[in-house]
């Protein structure tokens, strides 16, 4: 391979053959750092040019020697001018002549010297027709007209992975020349006018690259472009309900994630991992750190009290059932009760359908945040839409890709130690019984206080290391008529809980055998996943694709995880090895001696899920002005969940064994038809008229059976001693709507409008289709002549949008319903009915409206991209499950009413920047900031604030706000030196303490690419503030807090501990967290090395997650939530988010 000797040309004035070593890209005039230009065949340059260049030394090739220290630029230029006799001309307005510079060059060319001095000024030297040198802004050199034509070719790659990018659009600015990169990332542009040209390269999900090149007549210029991934760019195509559109023409802020780039460089194991921290306005709340546990997603706050706040999910145009708030959100076997330990109200987590999608099979994820954008998506889209597009195959030879990773997880750091105050019973005299004493227990004579934490003790802890293995295999290829993409993956994960040896031995002594594996390592997750997509071109006007995804997943867990909180409050006497802990759950327990360290690890929950999605897409373009599209598909999720307590396990109860078995199925069928006509209008306007119709039917069915009296060794319903109960839950929701959406474009200006008529099944009423309008305006104001900041902004777009969306009541919400039963009454079973729901025939859908506005700006030669969005989202007619006075029909009766108004206002800022953009080194960063302010602005007349979802609904305060009776004061009234509960004054009424969602979030993702992409380092930080967490762990630790056991503790601590069972005032805390979320260091083998190893590409990465947590939270981790479904947020000490490290290998063939 010969070295490249670029021919340096400036305009048509003159070129010179550079005979030195190949020029680094940044040394080429006008070439940005990540862009290299080499001139091929320059040795055979046209004689005239070559001859001319040999007659005299061109000005820029003259040799100068400089040794200037801390002089002004003006002085340095003057010195160069003096030595080279350049007749240097420039304007002080363009050149920062007062800048101080230092330069030391011996025998350098003028070009080298000038480029060094002018680095970062966007000013370059050009040789005028008279042979003088002029310093001009980069654009100025385009003035010269093209006289001849050359060829520009090159390769487009990802700056982080060096992988070729296929389909990147490469254009020569000011011409109609455009092409796309092929399967190897290569592109060729012929007939490019000679001279200085601007080459633009754009690719979905990457920052626009703009490069100045010099094209010489009849020569080939090679331009290799390494694109830097971008989170949001105006040039991207984004998916809308009416079809793909340029972001520029969409008036809303839509976040687009190029999944392939993220997965290639970051530790990603689920779709939630992909979304977390990458979507401004999205809050991800983890349920726990157990393998496969789901997360709760909230876009732009919460708006609904009664209905779901989950965004909807669309995969390749087909609705997928992904609700996390309803009864399918957790393990189905716990629905009907019968779980002995643990709280059914919080549910047992089970993996979310969203995370059953394999990230390796996804091409893009687009997040549409609110009603202003989601109007046309139909019912329930008011909470946002997550649009997932799977990978398509590419025409070309078969390409294989493989990735494998192996990792470990653990809980970082130590758990805070508890204080155990040891003493003896004293009722006039010591009775010899050791016990633990609170300072307010005056019948207990304490003699010592010890610190202890069983979770930190190697013999007693149940925390060990977890392991994870992931394997992915992908193959794609095809012809121009048919392409295919197949991705298969396997994941095997073991959680970090392990039964300590001491309990293994106790079990062995009790049962004569070691406990089964599932008791010893209870948390496991195994997932098989496959995705296939076939795309066919059926002639010039038609193409079609079919996608199938299938995931089979088994998650297992046991009650051992609940023993984290038990152990947290257990003291092990080192002498007697006896165990002490509060009796029962909650703060109301007395401390007692227990026989066993781990009270219950015998109950197992398993979730076996099969998730199948089949999507078919047909695009038909019967006319150049008319495109039509149809999507149809099915999503089927089948669940088999089990909760089992084998017989003879619990020491004192339930020796008969229990089994809960649940079968759950959800089926979503959806059809989406749309057409778009493009019609030119007078006065330069162009109209796109979109029309479409959607139909979806969601059916969920759960059958749950609970039995007792299991035979030894069986885990079947057959032969069980008694059927305790069965439950059946069935919901069917059908929705239908159609829309008309004309949009009008006038060069830099786009107005989009739309109207959707939307209906949903609401049993027993005449269906009406209320109308939901939308309106959006996008204006590329930087292209207007009057725009005053053209020098500062490359692109500046302002936008505003308004839209509405509806959220419907559940199908039976309007009806008065009855509960049937067959109670035993006077000697036999009778049929009995009582009211279960009062119903409300006047219910209407919730109506969500949103105003959104903002701007998108690219600056500094696209090194900096800023997007700012403000929104005001109102939920009118919010359905409130209003408590009915118990004097009407007893306790717990509610009636739905359209009475609430809930407002979410906020700002979202996204900044993408390239801090360094050189060939060997690139450093990019993406910062997103969002702020959400949530408030219930109205409740219905006469409706008092009420409690729901662990919080309160009160006008003037955030939805689900946390309230508690305040501690007004305290004092040692009886002078005994300690504060007792009776000496603490509590307020009569609860006061507002905080909200359950954060109101500020910030995320930083940064990638440093070294050695031309050979080494990449990625890191992310996440910050949250304003979320109030309920630290129930502290309540369980009540007896071990300093205020409970140390008479010398500050009285305020004593007071807080004394009333912890009467008010949660001291348990609620507004927290801020800064989490070092991830770090990835990857080595990307050079193509030659990869080829030597038989591969096309190869990378090896070390990746870590959750590497640091800095927080004011007094518990272990404020970002985990014990509630599986619904809206409540509470930390009960469930498994915190673990720290993980993994080694990842990715190979392409």
């Amino acid at each position: 391979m010969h070295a490249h000797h670029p021919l340096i040309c400036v305009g048509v004035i003159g070129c010179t053959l550079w005979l030195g070593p190949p020029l680094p890209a940044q040394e080429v005039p006008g070439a940005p750092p990540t862009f290299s230009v080499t001139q091929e065949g320059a040795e055979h340059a046209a004689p005239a040019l070559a001859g001319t260049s040999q007659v005299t030394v061109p000005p820029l090739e003259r040799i100068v020697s400089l040794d200037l220290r801390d002089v002004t630029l003006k002085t340095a230029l003057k010195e160069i001018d003096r030595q080279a006799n350049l007749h240097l001309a420039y304007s002080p307005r363009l050149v920062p002549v007062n800048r101080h510079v230092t330069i030391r060059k011996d025998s350098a060319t003028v070009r080298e010297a000038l480029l060094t001095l002018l680095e970062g000024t966007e000013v370059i030297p050009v040789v005028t027709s008279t042979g003088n040198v002029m310093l001009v802004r980069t654009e100025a050199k385009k003035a010269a007209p093209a006289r001849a034509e050359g060829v520009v070719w090159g390769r487009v790659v990802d700056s982080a992975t060096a992988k070729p990018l296929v389909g990147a659009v490469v254009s020569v600015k000011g011409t109609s020349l455009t092409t796309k990169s092929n399967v190897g990332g290569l592109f060729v542009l012929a007939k490019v006018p000679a001279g200085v040209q601007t080459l633009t390269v754009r690719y979905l999900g990457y920052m626009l690259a703009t490069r100045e090149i010099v094209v010489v007549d009849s020569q080939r210029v090679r331009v290799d472009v390494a694109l830097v991934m971008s989170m949001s760019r105006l040039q991207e195509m984004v998916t809308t309900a009416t079809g793909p559109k340029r972001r520029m023409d969409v008036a809303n802020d839509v976040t687009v994630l190029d999944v392939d780039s993220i997965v290639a460089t970051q530790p990603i194991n689920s779709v939630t991992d992909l979304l977390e921290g990458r979507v401004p306005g999205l809050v991800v709340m983890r349920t726990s750190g157990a393998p496969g546990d789901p997360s709760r997603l909230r876009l732009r706050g919460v708006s609904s009290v009664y209905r779901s706040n989950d965004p909807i999910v669309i995969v390749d145009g087909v609705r997928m059932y992904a609700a996390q708030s309803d009864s399918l959100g957790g393990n189905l076997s716990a629905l009907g009760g019968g779980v002995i330990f643990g709280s059914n109200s919080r549910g047992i987590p089970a993996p979310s359908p969203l995370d059953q999608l394999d990230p390796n099979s996804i091409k893009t994820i687009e997040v549409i945040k609110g009603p202003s954008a989601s109007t046309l998506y139909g019912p329930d889209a008011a909470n946002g839409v997550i649009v997932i597009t799977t990978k398509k195959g590419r025409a070309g030879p078969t390409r294989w890709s493989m990735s494998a990773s192996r990792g470990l997880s653990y809980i970082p750091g130590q758990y805070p130690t508890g204080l155990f105050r040891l003493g003896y019973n004293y009722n006039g005299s010591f009775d010899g019984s050791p016990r633990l004493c609170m300072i307010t227990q005056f019948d207990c004579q304490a003699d010592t206080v010890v610190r202890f934490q069983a979770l930190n003790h190697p013999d007693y802890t149940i925390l060990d290391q977890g392991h994870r293995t992931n394997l992915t295999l992908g193959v794609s290829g095809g012809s121009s008529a048919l392409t295919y993409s197949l991705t298969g993956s396997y994941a095997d994960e073991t959680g970090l809980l392990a039964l300590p040896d001491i309990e293994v031995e106790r079990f062995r002594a009790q049962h004569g055998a070691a406990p089964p594996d599932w008791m010893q390592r209870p948390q496991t997750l195994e997932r098989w996943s496959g995705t296939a997509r076939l795309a066919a071109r059926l002639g010039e006007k038609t193409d079609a694709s079919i996608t199938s995804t299938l995931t089979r997943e088994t998650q297992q867990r046991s009650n051992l995880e609940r023993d984290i909180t038990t152990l947290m409050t257990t003291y092990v006497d080192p002498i007697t090895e006896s165990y002490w802990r509060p009796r029962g759950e909650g703060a109301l327990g007395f401390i007692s001696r227990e026989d066993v360290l781990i009270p219950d690890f015998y109950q197992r929950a398993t979730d076996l899920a099969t998730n199948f999605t089949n999507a078919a897409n047909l695009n038909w373009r019967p006319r150049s002005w008319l495109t039509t599209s149809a999507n149809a598909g099915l999503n089927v999720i089948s669940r088999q969940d089990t909760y089992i307590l084998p017989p003879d396990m619990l020491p004192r109860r339930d020796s008969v064994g229990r089994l809960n078995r649940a079968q759950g199925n959800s089926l979503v069928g959806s059809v989406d038809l749309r057409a778009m006509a493009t019609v030119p209008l007078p006065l330069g306007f162009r109209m796109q008229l979109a029309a479409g119709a959607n139909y979806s039917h969601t059916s969920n069915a759960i059958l749950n059976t609970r039995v007792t009296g299991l035979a030894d060794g069986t885990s079947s319903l057959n032969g069980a001693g008694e059927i305790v109960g069965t439950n059946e839950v069935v919901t069917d929701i059908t929705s239908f709507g159609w829309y008309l959406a004309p949009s009008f474009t006038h060069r830099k200006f786009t107005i989009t409008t739309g109207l959707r008529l939307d209906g949903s099944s609401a049993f027993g009423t005449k269906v009406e289709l209320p109308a939901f309008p939308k309106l959006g305006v996008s204006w590329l104001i930087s292209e207007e002549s009057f725009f005053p900041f053209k020098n500062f902004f490359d692109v500046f777009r302002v936008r505003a949008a308004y839209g509405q969306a509806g959220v419907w009541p559940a199908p039976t919400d309007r009806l008065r319903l009855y509960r049937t039963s067959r109670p035993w009454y006077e000697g036999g079973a009778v049929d009995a009915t009582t009211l279960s729901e009062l119903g409300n025939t006047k219910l209407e859908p919730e109506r969500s409206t949103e105003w959104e506005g903002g701007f998108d700006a690219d600056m500094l030669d696209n090194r900096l991209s800023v997007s700012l969005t403000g929104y005001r989202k109102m939920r009118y007619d919010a359905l409130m499950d209003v408590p009915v006075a118990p004097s009407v029909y007893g306790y717990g009766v509610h009636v739905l009413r359209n009475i609430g108004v809930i407002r979410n206002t906020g700002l979202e800022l996204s900044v993408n920047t390239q801090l360094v953009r050189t060939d060997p080194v690139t450093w990019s960063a993406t910062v997103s900031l969002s702020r959400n302010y949530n408030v219930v602005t109205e409740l219905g007349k006469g409706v008092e604030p009420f409690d729901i979802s662990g919080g309160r609904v009160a006008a003037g305060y955030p939805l689900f706000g946390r309230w508690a009776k305040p501690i007004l004061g305290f004092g040692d009234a009886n002078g005994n030196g300690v504060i007792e509960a009776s000496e603490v004054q509590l307020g009569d009424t609860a006061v507002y303490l905080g909200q359950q969602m954060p109101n500020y979030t910030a995320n930083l993702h940064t990638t440093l690419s070294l050695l031309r992409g050979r080494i990449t380092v990625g890191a992310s930080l996440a910050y949250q503030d304003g979320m109030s967490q309920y630290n129930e762990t502290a309540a369980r630790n009540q007896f071990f807090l300093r205020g409970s056991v140390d008479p010398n503790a500050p009285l305020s601590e004593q007071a807080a501990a004394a009333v912890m069972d009467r008010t949660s005032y001291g348990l609620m805390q507004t927290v801020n967290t800064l989490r070092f979320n991830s770090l990835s260091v990857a080595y990307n083998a050079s193509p030659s090395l990869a080829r030597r190893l038989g591969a096309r590409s190869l990378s090896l990465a070390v990746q870590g997650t959750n590497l640091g947590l800095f927080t004011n939270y007094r518990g272990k981790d404020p970002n985990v939530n014990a509630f599986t479904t619904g809206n409540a947020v509470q930390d009960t000490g469930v498994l915190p988010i673990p720290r993980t490290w993994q080694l990842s290998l990715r190979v392409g063939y």
Partner: protein
Amino acid sequence: MEIRIMPTGFTWPFEISRLGSARRAIGVASVLLLAACSPDKLLGNENLPPDVPDPADTQTPEGALTAYYGSLVQLRTALGGESGVSALSYIPISGLLTDELQSTDAGLVGVVSSEILVDSRFLPETPLSDNGSATDYTNVHVYGPLQQVRGQARQARGALLAYAPDASTALAGHLYAAEGYAEILLADLYCSGIPLSTLDFGGDYTLKPGSTTEQVYTHAAALLDSALALSADSSRIMNLARVGKGRALLALGEYAAAAAAVADVPDDFHYAFAYSATTSSTGVPGQSISNRNFAWSAFGGTGAVDLTLVDNAGINGLNYLSSGDPRTEWGANGTNEHGLPRFRPAKYDASGESPIVLASGVEARLIEAEAQLQAGGAAWLATLNALRTDGTYSGVDSTVASVDTTYPPEGEEGEMQVDTTYQVDTLWNAGTGGVAGLGPLSDPETPEGRVDLVFRERAFWLYLTGHRQGDLRRLIRQYGRDPETVYPTGPYSGGYGTYGTDVDAPIPVSERTSNPRYTGCFSRGA
């Protein structure tokens, strides 16, 4: 006049006449349009999910009958049932407030449970805990269920009237009686100012302001009058209504009217709710109906609610245990986990299957005895003695080994064995012989002593049937007794402080937060 909507020179990008493939698109659009015009069809609106009982099923004679049973089962549960893990229905709650029951958690420093709050007569309207509006203790277990009985009885009556007009009117009478008893129990326990909101059959609900205690008793008596008017063909329901009316009138101080109301109730009448150890699923996830009575979770050792019988509770309490009276026969029930002894009533088996008497001929005679005492003369004593000597109260079941009723029990704490094999006749069949262990009473000769004796007899005869709370308030309200001479007082068990001063329960705060017409108790006290 020519109207031009397109500027000169404008051409459509297609020719109207060449709509070949567009015709198909129009066809598809037409289908969609038709569907949109008939959304009911498209949305499948006619199907109710199969797990939801069809409201139409209740609109039949059989459906009306199921609503009738629903009311009675609710009253049974509200009176003395247990709901899942909880025993806190009316009888145990009122037993805790009075001298019948005690929480075994008492005496444990740091424990503030609902049972202790009631037991120690500390019942503020504002719950101690933050989320009290959702969990305040008497609401879930007593106030709510009793109000539900009222609402359901009205629903069931409406259903009978609408869909089973040919059914016996005694069924409706039975429902009036159930509603009347629910109001009596509400008035016995709760403060003056009880809202009696209404839920119309098939219609809306009407929130009501509070009613005074007297108004509630009067309303209850009127309901029982309606029951009497409709139940002529059922002597059982007639007698139930008579006793109930007598109870309401007694609470109003109308002694003679009360006696008149129960005059026709035979001695051997009893209206008892039967309980069973089975659990019935409701078909709603997580919900089931327990058919057990409160004894299962209160004394059954489930650990859910640790209650015990108590002797001489708080100075003023009666000596139920040490008296050796067969009507309050008891058995040792081991100790709780802190070594405190527990006692259980012999009349209620720990399985929770024993019946509980709501109304009886014994109560009728006791009402008459009190009226006779008010009227003067000696008849009252004869009436009481007749109950003690003429009945067939069998006491301990003859098939069961003897029960150690020595009080205090002998032996070391923790060594006491749980008696599980005894059962007494809780129904008491009067009129065919003597009552084991009960001799005739003698006249204390003083007015106060006579009142004490009548009320003591009521306490023993009606032990743990939900009558004691109403009686103690009547002693204050009608006989001028100081509350601190009636209710348990002084140091509370186990050094937990002293008894409070409450003699009633407040209306739960959730009523205040959801009923704008309700403004709180008119007054607290008897």
